[in-house]
């Protein structure tokens, strides 16, 4: 037997994931409860916005005019602050309560177990076997140094009293209890020792309470969410609408529960294996454990059974996989030491990384929601997202760096190379999934993520950019993790901390940058805005991020060089030569481009171009040094395998960042020698800006660089160090020349980028949401024209052609509505009959053409307004609007069944309004419906204007809905003007088109 000095490894990072998952799900469920139980705050916010003429739905888009200016933001914030704070508090409460519920369940479970154990234990004097077992147990407790509150109590239970397994139960601040069935006392002593040491391993790992709390994880989510949504039963009329809204939320909750159950099971399996390993380490032999576990089932035999039938075999495979996935104990073969490192490989594999990605991104989105409820966050705009991203990045780094470090160590210990494709794929998939979804019930009662709502209709570019950024961050993480030295080295703790800081910083800057770039790019597809934002982000937001990454990479690279598997380096001169050449070439080229052109710079645009050019050259010098050093394979033959490229990443990154910074210093020196910018802050910016641009370039290009370097490692056996230095200088010089000559326009800042960037918000603010169209009655028809003539479909289509020019910018054509209108079951009966008569009369009248065009436009603050313009040409002239007037006379007040309404009905009116101004007989009707949707008034207004020109009935209708109250007077005026303009425009076309 060996000494039991080393405690079993703790699984803190995995427990952290479980707690975060619980907190996120709790926050989502609490938000769902808030939305389901009362719409007071959201309704008040929407009403307030409606009173100010702001449609709440319009605020969700990235191009909302209301969020472009400080004054607009203040108006919006004045309305939504109460709701945002209420939402924030609910989320925080849920994030605390659900983990607390799991904790209480653990305590309740522990108390229940102790209560059931009370009085049922086998008496210490009951038999010789139980006495021997007690002695043996005490012996191991003494030997392992378990004293005081950490010394567990042994309870021997009668056969089958609590199943046939030994277990440990714990309560906070109480000594744990190890429960062993009596039958275990009759085992061989070595086998009994295995069981006891397994349980004592849990005691020494101090995770008994954790594991007990984790037991409930996964089972709580869906019931808690259903409970939170239960107040919705108050609205039975809306069940179909509620079902449609919350079905994706529930489906997501089920999926996440399955994921969390899988994670929980894997965590518990990992914990059991750690306990087994501890027992084996103490005993020094696996024989007793193997004897206890028995012979594992033959894999071949098992597969043979599974593969014998088609559907049945598939079903059996699914069931077997599911059972394996949620089993809390690993298979006997794994436990019996058949594959000692399999569990640790799993820890850094696809599944755990994907879950970490999901949770990190969900943490960012949930924290963003919570933090946005504060005044300072709302006014500062980006700060809440930056802080939220820092939390997400820390979670990611704290979980993934240790797990990937172990993955790399295990492979190194086995003399093999770890495969990183699975973990990196897991990172990309998990992060994108976490970006697209949110904690079930959270936010806007939707399964979609909070940030993607900003990209409504333009999601794919966002997903693509997120995937690229994740891949870059993941390769950076893998490089840092792979270079951390093995356990036992004094530098290891420093290196792990440095790697975590560097990775968290990269994560926390990369994703908000990507999101803000998308926010800037998507509304106008403006690359210039992206370039300018990218340049400025490093100066205004993440000033110290590159320095943190540099510090982290430097520390990790230093620890790696002192570690046992450091590469054999014959001489450091080639590397230093590359850095030196890059610094000089980049710094001098940047300084010359500045110094030679600054005299002719006569505008802010020109200065901005020069500043960006010089910092880009310095950043490129750093990137070139990084690339060359990444490609420089050490002389160690063992490092010829492709995966050995990754440990070179930290040193290459450190060299790259240092090169960019030093090139900035050279640039500053040249500029200062020319008499410009001798202040310290100019020097700081000259250093910091290239480093920021290098960080952006690293995130975007590192996966490709690493892949090519790995390929080059395979192909080339000899490093050509002599060519590296001069080659680097040539490449940097060529890049500088190309940049100055304007040969790389997509990357280089354009001559008007700065002024475009400054002007963009003002331009947007100046653009009205709808261009008010003057309503001009048709002029006199030309001789021979007859607008009242019968028309065919072609003539009607021609009359409607070009009508969209009167619509505000951003209109969309909708498909033609070919469905016949369904009869409405409205009340009173006289109103319904009058409308039926009118409809039947129209349908019965023979016609030569009937065409309508439908569009959706933004009108004022309302983003979705439907406009329909149509012409019906009858065989006989239409006499008047008698039937319409009869209907409006009967429908002064009416009710319509509405499944969305709290009461099951919507109330409204159908009235006649002043006729449109036109030389032809006209008619106008206003149909207004008001429904209470979960106490929030929703008003739908339908304006219809008609004009009769002989055989032809021209119609224009505009439909708009508004939450919180009716649209503002100004919006209604715009609507009326647009309707009249469209009507007269069509009439004008009819008057001027010659008869066919």
């Amino acid at each position, binding site marked *: 037997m060996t000494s039991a000095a080393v405690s079993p490894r703790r699984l803190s990072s995995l427990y952290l994931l479980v707690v975060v998952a619980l907190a996120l799900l709790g926050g989502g469920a609490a938000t769902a409860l808030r939305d389901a139980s009362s719409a007071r705050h959201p309704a008040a916010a929407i009403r307030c916005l409606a009173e100010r003429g702001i449609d709440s739905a319009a605020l969700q888009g990235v191009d909302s005019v209301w969020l472009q200016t400080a004054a607009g933001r203040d108006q919006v914030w004045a309305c939504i602050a109460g709701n945002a704070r209420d939402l924030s508090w609910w989320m925080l409460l849920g994030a605390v309560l659900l983990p607390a519920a799991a904790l209480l369940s653990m305590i*309740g479970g522990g108390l229940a177990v102790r209560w059931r154990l009370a009085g049922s234990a086998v008496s210490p004097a009951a038999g010789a076997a139980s006495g021997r077992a007690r002695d043996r147990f005490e012996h191991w407790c003494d030997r392992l140094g378990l004293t005081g509150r950490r010394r567990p109590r042994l309870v021997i239970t009668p056969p089958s009293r609590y199943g*046939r*397994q030994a277990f440990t139960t714990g309560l906070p601040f109480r000594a744990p209890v190890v429960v062993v069935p009596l039958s275990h006392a009759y085992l061989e002593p070595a086998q009994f020792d295995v069981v006891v040491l397994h349980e004592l391993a849990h005691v020494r790992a101090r995770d008994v309470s954790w594991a007990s709390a984790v037991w409930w994880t996964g089972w709580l989510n869906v019931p808690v969410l259903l409970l939170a949504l239960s107040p919705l039963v108050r609205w039975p009329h809306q069940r179909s609408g509620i079902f449609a809204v919350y079905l994706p939320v529930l489906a997501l909750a089920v999926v996440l529960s399955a994921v969390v159950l899988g994670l929980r099971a894997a965590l518990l399996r990992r914990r059991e294996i750690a306990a087994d390993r501890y027992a084996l380490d103490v005993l020094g032999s696996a024989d007793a454990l193997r004897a206890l576990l028995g012979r594992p089932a033959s894999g071949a035999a098992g597969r043979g059974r599974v593969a014998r039938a088609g559907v049945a075999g598939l079903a059996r495979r699914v069931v077997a996989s599911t059972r394996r996935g949620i089993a809390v104990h690993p298979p006997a073969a794994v436990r019996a030491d058949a594959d000692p490192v399999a569990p640790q490989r799993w820890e850094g594999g696809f599944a755990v990384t994907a879950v970490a990605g999901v949770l990190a991104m969900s943490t960012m989105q949930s924290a963003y929601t919570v933090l946005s409820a504060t005044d300072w966050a709302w006014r500062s705009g980006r700060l809440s997202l930056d802080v939220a991203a820092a939390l997400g990045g820390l979670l990611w780094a704290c979980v993934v760096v240790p797990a990937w470090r172990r993955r790399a160590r295990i492979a190194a210990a086995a003399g093999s190379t770890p495969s990183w494709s699975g973990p990196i794929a897991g990172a990309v998939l998990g992060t994108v999934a976490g970006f697209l979804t949110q904690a079930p019930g959270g936010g806007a009662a939707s399964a979609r993520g909070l940030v993607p709502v900003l990209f409504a209709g333009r999601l794919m570019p966002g997903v693509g950019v997120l995937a690229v950024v994740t891949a870059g961050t993941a390769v950076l993480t893998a490089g840092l993790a792979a270079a951390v030295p093995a356990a036992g080295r004094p530098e290891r703790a420093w290196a792990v901390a440095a790697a975590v800081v560097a990775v968290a910083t990269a994560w926390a800057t990369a994703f908000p940058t990507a999101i803000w770039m998308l926010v800037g790019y998507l509304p106008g597809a403006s690359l210039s805005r992206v370039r300018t934002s990218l340049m400025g982000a490093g100066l205004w937001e993440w000033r110290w991020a590159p320095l943190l990454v540099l510090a982290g990479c430097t520390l990790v690279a230093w620890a790696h060089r002192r570690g046992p598997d450091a590469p054999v380096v014959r001489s450091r001169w080639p590397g230093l030569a590359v850095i030196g050449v890059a610094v000089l070439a980049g710094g001098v080229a940047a300084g010359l481009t500045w110094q030679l052109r600054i005299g002719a710079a006569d505008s802010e645009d020109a200065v901005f171009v020069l500043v960006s050019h010089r910092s880009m050259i310095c950043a490129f010098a750093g990137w070139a040094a990084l690339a060359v050093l990444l490609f420089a394979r050490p002389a160690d033959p063992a490092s010829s395998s492709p995966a050995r490229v990754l440990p070179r990443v930290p040193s290459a990154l450190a060299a790259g960042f240092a090169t960019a910074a030093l090139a900035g210093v050279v640039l500053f020196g040249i500029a200062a020698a020319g008499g410009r910018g001798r202040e310290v802050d100019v020097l700081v910016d000259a250093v910091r800006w290239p480093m920021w641009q290098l960080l952006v370039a690293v995130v975007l290009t590192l996966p490709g660089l690493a892949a090519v370097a790995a390929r080059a490692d395979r192909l080339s056996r000899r490093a050509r160090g002599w060519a590296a230095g001069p080659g680097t200088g040539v490449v940097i010089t060529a890049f500088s020349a190309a940049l100055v000559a304007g040969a790389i326009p997509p990357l280089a800042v354009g001559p008007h980028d700065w002024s475009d960037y400054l002007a963009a918000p003002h331009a947007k603010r100046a653009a009205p949401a709808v261009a008010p169209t003057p309503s001009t009655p048709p002029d006199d028809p030309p001789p021979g024209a007859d607008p009242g003539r019968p028309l065919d479909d072609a003539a009607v289509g021609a009359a409607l052609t070009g009508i969209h020019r009167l619509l505000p910018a951003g209109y969309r054509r909708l498909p033609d509505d070919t469905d016949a209108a369904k009869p409405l079951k409205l009340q009173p009966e006289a109103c319904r009959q009058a409308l039926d008569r009118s409809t039947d009369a129209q349908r019965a009248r023979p016609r030569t053409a009937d065409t309508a065009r439908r569009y959706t436009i933004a009108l004022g603050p309302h983003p979705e307004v439907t406009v329909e313009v149509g012409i019906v040409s009858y065989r006989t002239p239409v006499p008047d609007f008698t039937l319409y007037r009869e209907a409006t006379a009967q429908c002064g007040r009416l009710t319509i069944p509405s499944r969305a309404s709290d009461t099951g009905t919507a109330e409204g009116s159908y009235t006649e309004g002043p006729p449109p101004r036109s030389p032809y007989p006209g008619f106008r009707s206003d149909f207004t419906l008001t429904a209470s949707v979960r106490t929030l008034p929703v008003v739908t207004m339908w304006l219809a204007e008609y004009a009769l020109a002989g055989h032809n009935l021209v119609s224009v209708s505009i439909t708009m809905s508004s939450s919180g109250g009716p649209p503002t007077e100004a919006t209604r005026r715009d609507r009326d003007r647009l309707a009249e303009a469209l009507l007269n425009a069509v009439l004008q076309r009819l008057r001027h088109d010659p008869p066919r």
Partner: protein
Amino acid sequence: MVDRAAQDADGGHTPAADGIATVDLVGVARSVVVATVPEQLDLLTEVATRWEAGAGPDGPRRGWTGGSVGSGIEPLLLGEVILPVLLGASAEVLGDAVVAAWHSRPRPVRRWRRRARSGRDEPVALPAAPVTLDASQAEALRSACVRHGAALGLSPEEATVLADAVYGALCRAMTEPRRDDD
């Protein structure tokens, strides 16, 4: 008579003419344990007593309330599984009435009540489970023991050894002369 057979350390039995015997299953189990793993006799006694008290082979489920996670190791000892194997096999061969009759018979005072009365632990007598069977049924019981043993988690080899031991005890019961102290 049956009670006396239950106390017989050699597997209490009541032989009859033409190969039919009335045996006590608990006695058979006891004889098998004594012959193979005598140190587990106490365990068998505990198991039989718990059965007598009405507990099933698996006892109440542990763990659904959380609070603990088991070791996942379930060692199988002869003294623990032989009684469930024997009763299950007998039910298969002779019908469920055997087990039902055993469970529904008049029971002695519960153990905890006895303890409460006496205030101290006392040696507990094994309960009796008499069944009557002939030679062919003994063969069938042997095969059934293999199946039930495997179902309870024994390997085929272990289940066969157990079944052979049971069969041997049954054969002895059928062939040895009756010992009647009355």
